[in-house]
């Protein structure tokens, strides 16, 4: 099966390992992975700040880049949600709306793709530790992907999963919210870190780099002994 990877700008620049883990994982599961080099960003930073016209430029670019793809897979719930929003945002531009819809239809978040399309729940990963999973807001509420990551994690050998208290509360990232409304963001991320501690986990797993940079950055700043891992890296551990 041929898969086009949308790696997201955060992973491209900051979390390169997560990108490599995603490629290796998909290949191991039998996919042929291609990386369209002209890809940039899904447009969310501009869109969520109200710069819809500017976001539309990058959205149209992305539509062109992935036009030939069979499946577009991305290791980010939030960016997958954004690609799925394209037709809605471009609804007044008939030609683009149709092209956007075609992209939305073939776009999957990584764990969703593995479980729903490949039909695999046990990827043969091994990782020792006690972990908890952060349910990111866009992925659960807007994309509706709730079960897939948990199913995959439950099969990781050696990994004990603990429930995260108040998992429905946002971590306080919110893109530019984190720098525009820092004092509020701080309270929110502190509460999240506290929940992770209450969970009694030494690994925090998530499927969105934005949230993980936020929670992880706070964990590091506070010097807490909790490791933060993207789910692609967990599933690629052997």
């Amino acid at each position, binding site marked *: 099966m041929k898969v086009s990877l949308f790696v997201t700008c955060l992973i491209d620049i900051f979390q*390169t390992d997560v990108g490599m883990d995603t490629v290796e994982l998909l290949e191991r599961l039998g996919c042929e992975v291609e990386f369209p080099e002209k890809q940039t960003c899904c447009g969310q930073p501009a869109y969520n700040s109200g*710069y819809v016209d500017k976001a539309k*430029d990058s959205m149209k670019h992305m539509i062109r880049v992935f036009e030939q793809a069979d499946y577009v897979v991305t290791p980010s719930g939030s960016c997958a949600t954004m690609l799925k929003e394209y037709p809605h945002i471009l609804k007044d531009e008939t030609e683009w709306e149709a092209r956007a819809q075609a992209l939305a239809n073939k776009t999957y978040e990584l764990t969703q793709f593995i479980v729903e399309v490949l039909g695999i729940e046990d990827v043969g990963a091994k990782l020792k530790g006690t972990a908890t999973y952060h349910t990111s807001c866009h992925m659960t509420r807007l994309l509706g992907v709730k079960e897939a990551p948990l199913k995959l994690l439950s099969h990781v050998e050696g990994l004990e999963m603990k429930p995260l208290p108040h998992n429905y509360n946002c971590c306080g990232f919110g893109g530019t919210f984190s720098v525009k409304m820092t004092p509020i963001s701080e309270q929110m991320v502190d509460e999240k870190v506290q929940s992770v501690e209450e969970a009694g986990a030494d690994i925090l797993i998530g499927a969105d780099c934005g949230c993980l940079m936020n929670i992880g950055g706070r964990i590091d700043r506070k010097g807490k002994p909790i490791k933060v891992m993207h789910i692609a890296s967990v599933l690629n551990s052997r």
Partner: protein
Amino acid sequence: MAMKIGDKPFKERVSDGINDAFMRGAVASAQGRFRSGRLNAAEELGNWEEWRKLGEEIRSHTIENLDYYLELLSENVIKRGGHVFFAKTAEEANEYITKVVKEKNGKKVVKSKSMVTEEINMNEALERAGCEVIESDLGEWILQVDDHDPPSHIVTPALHKNKEQIRDVFKEKLGYDKTEKPEELALFAREKLREEFLQADIGITGCNFAIAESGTISLVTNEGNARMVTTIPKTQITVMGMERIVPTWEEMEVLVSLLTRAAVGQKLTSYITALTGPRQEGEADGPEEFHLVIVDNGRSNILGTAFQSILHCIRCAACINVCPVYRHVGGHSYGSIYPGPVGAVLTPLLGGYDEYKELPYASTLCAACTEACPVKIPLHEHLLRHRQEIVEKEGKAPVFENLSMKAFSLGTASPAMYNIGSKLAPTALGFFSADDKISKGPGPLKNWTDIRDFPAPKKNRFRDLYKKRQKGGEE
């Protein structure tokens, strides 16, 4: 009290909120209770999503045909011998209400809970006219006794106070000498309020749903105070926002089911009061005279815009009860009697961007509100829409942000520019990084690194590593 509360700028209000440990404790525990209550009640009803869809359909049909239903309502109220007044503005509404009260030579007014009378600042107008106004909803009454402390929540207005604080308010203002036990506090309030009811000559209520087909006003309460307000005083005035209407009793039943479950997790509230015009011949109770004041005050400007669905709101506060931002800053931070997600959407529409432009940004767009809303208002999308209006129509975005967004679109709409930009990132940020993290960032990164570390950009981007790997594979 008008819609606006307090004079401090947004940042100060937020920091007051964050530093108020009592308030935050009270809010967090209330949010926990409301959340599980709502989920249980929804589950018990079964098919919650179907119910929400029905609720959405009812609200959108009604608001689409608002003029028709308002006319029908008005006709039916008049048929039963009531009076109807359409107020375009807050001033018009207050003028009319004051006129009625004066004509009746009213000295003492008792009120049941009503957000719209707060919005139009009715109490002050009546007090200026020499009238005493008594709030009879327990929460509102506590706030009134506490020197008009503003409400911080639309259903439980005194949510920011815990029982010890309420005891102290009663003690200081009314000589209360018992404990902070809720039963004792409530009993004390009830005794005080009973006296007021018996002396009041005018009753003023809000309105949860006006039923157009019969000209009925319905009120949803847990304390029964609305029943007292509508039976004892000889004259009753009901003030409603123009969108608070349903076509028939059937839709009212659906919406009340959604309202009570979404608001407090109850199947039904203790009281649902319905009043159809003044007392008719042969009826045992009810006011001798009934006035319905229908308030526009900016609402019709929302009709026909992309924000129209905010008029579907049934004021249940479910969105407020799940909001993680509200949880930490509390209601007063919003600077409006309408706080939380619904407030962040509605307040700028009624009060303008000059005063309230921060509110749409005080959200992570986590969509917890949208998920909780019983009539499926896409609240987080409305917040985005506000941001778009502020940036693109009003041109009110900060200059720096404008520039960086220009750079963003240059860098993301063109692969060549993205390539240059992302390649330069490690060099540009290199000065600030120690090992693989940045703890004191430049520009907008500073706010980030004030409270958390930021990863340093990698020397080789993913795309470089991927290329190398592909080449390696070929060799």
